[in-house]
């Protein structure tokens, strides 16, 4: 396997990218502390990882998109799941909770303020559930993207 094909390629060396209008940019990986901060920050607040890395427009758009999706999910009376207790079996609810937790602080705030109960009989409850789940899952992808940017794999 070529060195560049390795999953760890680009971890320690600078990467060169060709961007629009044939402009070439060389990206150096950020420090491990900055990478960790971007990932943890991004998990807590959607888009914060990109903001910490100086990607202001991307971060703002991601923040608005994911938080708006989460808020709309609650508005449509979707229900949030909580992680299973130690005496509960792993079930579909566990996967549901994993997806919900991905939203970060909005998830915690919604639970603390009692807005995550949902109304199962509401006409839009299923849509609301879907919005809440997808908001969390998208944020996991966003954190991976922030990680790639921090490691210099992506401009």
């Amino acid at each position, binding site marked *: 396997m070529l060195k560049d094909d390795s999953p760890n390629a680009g971890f320690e060396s600078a990467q060169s990218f060709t961007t629009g209008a044939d402009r070439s940019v060389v990206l150096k990986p950020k420090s491990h502390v900055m990478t960790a901060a971007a990932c943890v920050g991004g998990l807590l607040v959607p888009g914060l990882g990109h903001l910490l890395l100086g990607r202001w427009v991307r971060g703002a*758009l991601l923040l608005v*998109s994911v938080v708006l*999706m989460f808020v709309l999910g609650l508005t449509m009376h979707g229900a949030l799941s909580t992680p299973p207790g130690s005496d509960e079996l792993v079930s579909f609810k566990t996967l549901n909770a994993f997806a919900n937790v991905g939203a970060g602080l909005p998830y915690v705030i919604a639970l603390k303020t009692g807005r995550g109960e949902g109304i199962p009989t509401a006409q*839009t409850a299923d849509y609301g559930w879907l919005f809440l789940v997808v908001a969390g899952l998208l944020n996991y*992808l966003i954190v991976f993207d922030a990680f790639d940017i921090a490691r210099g794999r992506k401009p």
Partner: protein
Amino acid sequence: MSFSHFGALTTFALLVAVVFAIITKNEPREQFRYGVFVFFSFLAAAILVGWIMYPLPL
């Protein structure tokens, strides 16, 4: 706030398209084109599936 099915679908498609475009493409122009593609793909798929299910009894 009440949503129609189509309104909820359109909102969902828009928000997901924005995120997908940002995390998969690097250049603003590419992001815009890909976002538009994802958005309309969502709508087209939903309308197509809706018509496929149309003859089915409720």
